[in-house]
């Protein structure tokens, strides 16, 4: 089942990359997708089942717009801090625990933290323990307030 799913994703990726519809290239596309799915089908989906994987993907898509907005805010903040002649930064390291346990959940949260205002993930481990470097006090407080964790938790399900 994983195998079929992976080969379909791979074939779609092939068509997007290729944009050519010769007989020969389509045939090689099918063969190569099957080959990649054969050697790597346990990688893409991992230990999850497909149902969980696809629902998570859908919920993730709903999470993206909020993330993009946060990324824009992050950059405005950073531009201000970089170009301000006095460079108003006050770095600090914070740690906190989350209820996340799955690989995907932790990865999404870690990368979201890295992309959003004033914070970068230093350590994220399997027990949901995070260490984060914040560039000033306010971003640290915002992160500890926990809005993002709740949203990611909803993605994880």
């Amino acid at each position, binding site marked *: 089942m994983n195998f079929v799913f992976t080969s379909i*994703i791979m074939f779609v990726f092939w068509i997007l*990359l290729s944009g050519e519809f010769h007989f*020969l290239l389509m045939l*090689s596309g099918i063969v190569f997708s099957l080959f*990649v799915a054969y050697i790597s089908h346990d990688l*893409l989906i991992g230990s999850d089942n497909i149902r969980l994987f696809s629902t998570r993907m859908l919920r993730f898509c709903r999470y993206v717009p909020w993330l993009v907005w946060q990324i824009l805010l992050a950059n405005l903040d950073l531009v201000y801090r970089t170009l301000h002649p006095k460079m108003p930064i006050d770095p600090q390291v914070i740690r906190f625990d989350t209820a996340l346990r799955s690989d995907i959940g*932790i*990865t999404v949260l870690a990368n979201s933290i890295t992309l959003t205002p004033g914070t970068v993930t230093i350590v994220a481990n399997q027990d949901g323990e995070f260490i984060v470097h914040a560039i000033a006090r306010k971003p640290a407080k915002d992160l500890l307030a926990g809005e993002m964790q709740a949203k990611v938790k909803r993605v994880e399900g």
Partner: protein
Amino acid sequence: MIDLMLLLFLVVCAIAAVSMKDLLSTTIILGVYSLIMTVVWTRLNAVDVAFTEASVGAGITTVLIIAALSRTKREEEGQEYGMWSKLLNPQDLKLTDKQSPLLWLTSLFIVLITGAVLIYGTIDMPDFGDPDAPANIHLAKRFIEESYEETGVPNFVTAILASYRGYDTLGETTVIFTAGISLILLLRRKSYICDTTIKEKEMKEHIVIRTISRILIPFVQLYALYVIAHGELSPGGGFQGGVIFGSSIILYVIAFGLEEGRKVRIFREMGDLLNSTGVLIYAGIGVLCLLAGGAYLEYDKLPLGSEKMASSLGIYGIEIGVGITVAAVMITIFFITARHER
């Protein structure tokens, strides 16, 4: 303007790379050098070369040099050599017996003379991009105008490499194969003990890197195969595709550890076989051409539809052969150099 800035960049990089003492820093700077070199190639419109530089120079060379570093020492040892490091750190300027001023001056003299001779040699060369240069009058014209008619391959770099210069490419593939075999003979050892306690700690800490690598690897692999298959239409081909495929396996090993990589991903037993399979496919297609009544590697004599079709399919076949060899040899080299016996 851009060209001048890029040139400046390259010169600074080169000087910095020579004057660093920490070899890891030098590796990083060489990676940067290679990045900029790719931009220069694209500026010159040499897409295939740029592609090779991108996949080989910046990516896999860095990884392989680091694998080699992990077997040797990281710091440069012994006396200060080279004047750049002295100019940068004047307090190190201590001349020993070995570096008496006379010796120093002599070597400077020799280098200057050689440089002058080389520059003198270039005076007779045609100007850069001169349309009347001998290389541009006969050969290039024919390749550009007639290669599609003669080989059925739109990308004429691929046409030249695989068809007009088919023997050279066969030679290159064999050289890569030979390098892999030599390394196997020189460095492979049987014993390997894995320290599992480190592995478990790593497993917990590096969860993000692992998850992302896991998701990325299938896409990298499919992309590599796409590059091989589209070598005839767009830049790329067997060589670049093979390197990218090799890098995907290398990424797996770096993220998950060698033991894991060997258990899941075939390559201990299959590796040796695959190393030679590629060359076999390449040479075998040549032999098939002989059997079909043509010369060695004369693809259009293959009994596969029209001449153009046959030629195109033959070239596709050897691209796959090159790809298999390159991928397998890269993986073999990485596995052998990165592995530590304890």
